[in-house]
């Protein structure tokens, strides 16, 4: 039974992260996931101190607030300080993360918030982190939280699909049409923050980044349709979760680490064997018709380059 709960937790976390991560990757802001996952630390710590409990909802709110703050400060710094987007992001998230570390170490005696657990997660203990409601055992708490966040993400993407699409593809057009782009922007960033905090409680900050970036990047190599990309990203997230669990089981290693490794393995496979973009397909095509093919793929550059956004 505990195997089931661990795998389910990983699958829910990877699905939630893959959905929002796809839009970050498409907007060439993949590392924003990294930034947010670190910068939410003071939010968690403050929520922790104020409520003096490991209650999740105050933590979600604290994390959400600091996630949005990260995005806001990054953009302001970029505009005002005339810095590059990645530089201002680096400044903002490391500062916030450091503040979080200070808060935690200052009050370390009062709170049992473990930095190890924040960085590496504790997915193996998920089955014993039960939610007792009205004296009833409702199953592991992380499953409920991640399920809730996944539903939130799905609801957001399904209801604002066309807005998200135009926001990611052509922000200027969206603004010129009067589409409430800021609402969509901060909605997405809020979703990223929620997903990050919900996921990293169980899988840790490092795996969160892998889950946000790698499955969407893998999907990107395999399809040229947004809807397929979202589905494939979720598929690879789930596949990595399941195969990662068994990899960890057989090698007796960290589950979160093994899942992250598996996301990388699938990315590598896609890189070689993708019919659209794969290295082999390109070689084959080049052989078929030396010179111009009917379609040369758009190249394999990993899309983590930061762009300046208005």
């Amino acid at each position, binding site marked *: 039974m505990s195997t089931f709960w661990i795998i389910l937790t990983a699958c829910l976390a990877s699905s939630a992260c893959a959905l929002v991560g796809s839009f970050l990757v498409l907007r060439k802001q993949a590392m924003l996931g990294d930034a947010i996952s670190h910068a939410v630390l003071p939010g968690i710590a403050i929520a922790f101190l104020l409520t003096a409990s490991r209650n999740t909802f105050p933590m979600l709110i604290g994390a959400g607030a600091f996630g949005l703050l990260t995005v806001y400060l990054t953009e302001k710094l970029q505009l005002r300080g005339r810095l590059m987007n990645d530089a201002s992001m680096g400044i903002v998230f490391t500062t916030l993360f450091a503040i979080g570390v200070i808060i935690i170490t200052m009050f370390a005696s009062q709170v049992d918030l473990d930095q190890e657990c924040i960085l590496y997660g504790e997915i193996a203990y998920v089955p014993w982190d039960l939610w007792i409601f009205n004296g009833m055992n409702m199953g592991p708490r992380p499953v409920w939280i991640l399920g809730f966040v996944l539903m939130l993400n799905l609801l957001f993407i399904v209801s604002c*699909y066309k807005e998200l699409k135009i926001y990611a593809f052509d922000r200027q057009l969206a603004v010129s049409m009067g589409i409430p782009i800021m609402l969509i922007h901060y909605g997405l960033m809020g979703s990223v923050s929620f997903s990050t905090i919900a996921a990293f409680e169980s899988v840790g900050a490092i795996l969160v980044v892998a889950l946000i970036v790698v499955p969407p990047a893998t999907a990107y190599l395999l399809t040229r349709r947004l809807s397929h990309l979202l589905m494939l990203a979720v598929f690879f997230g789930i596949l990595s979760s399941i195969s990662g669990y068994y990899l960890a089981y057989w090698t007796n290693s960290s589950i979160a680490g093994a899942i992250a490794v598996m996301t990388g393995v699938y990315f590598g496979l896609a890189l070689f064997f993708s019919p659209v973009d794969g290295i082999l397909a390109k070689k084959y095509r080049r052989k078929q018709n030396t010179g111009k093919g009917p379609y040369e793929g758009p190249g394999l550059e990993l899309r983590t380059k930061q762009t300046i956004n208005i």
Partner: protein
Amino acid sequence: MSESAAKVKGAPPVEVHDLTVSYQNKPVLWDVDFELPEGKLIAVVGPNGAGKSTLIKTIMGLIDPVSGHSLIYGRPLEQMRKKIAYVPQRETVDWNFPVSVFDVVLMGRYAHLSLFKRPKKHDKELAMEALEKVGMAEFADRQISQLSGGQQQRVFLARALAQDAEIYFMDEPFAGVDASTEDHILLLLKELRNHGRTVVVVHHDLQTVSGYFDWVMLLNLRLVALGPMETTFTKENLQKAYGGRLNILSQVIELSRKEDFIREPGHE
């Protein structure tokens, strides 16, 4: 998305008042003031960095001016968004983005759809019609990464047509397209104009300006001149807009005028 208010009677399609725009305290548009006539093909001409793109983006509400304002049919932009369409320079989007040609054109319809609403059959028909107009119907299902530069430009144009606006702002739609695509685009612009739409186009090829357009705006930080082609597209105004740099250019114009490259306006 926004409510579309009625036009103010007798108001010009576009009026710009005392507009000053700057990037980081460096002005790129200085006290620009004009009104555009309705139902004309209008070229915006000026050297690189003159502020042409900035002017259009400011009118479209993408950049906040330092001072001044612009009106669309006498009302603020927010009330008139459905009436104007913008074709940005091609490089502003990522052509590897995972969408099909049809998807991109359908985005033109989003201006008419409220939040949470999905495109309907009618919207899809209009998008398809627009694709047919630019001669790209058979590319509808193609991924946009598989298009040539000229085809990308046509897709952008189709998207603007699908917006079904009354005023069109286009930033260098003729950049990097071959002669047949250029003819095709010009034909579409003229068709829009003949239907009473106002079309404002940033154009770089001085040799074709007077043949293609009805009016011309010469811009270089300040508004140099604006008016009908015959009276405005003069050597003096060009000299003012391009400054000393124009020596070679004006010779080109002189030459092309002699060789009848510059067609008489309204020769259609």
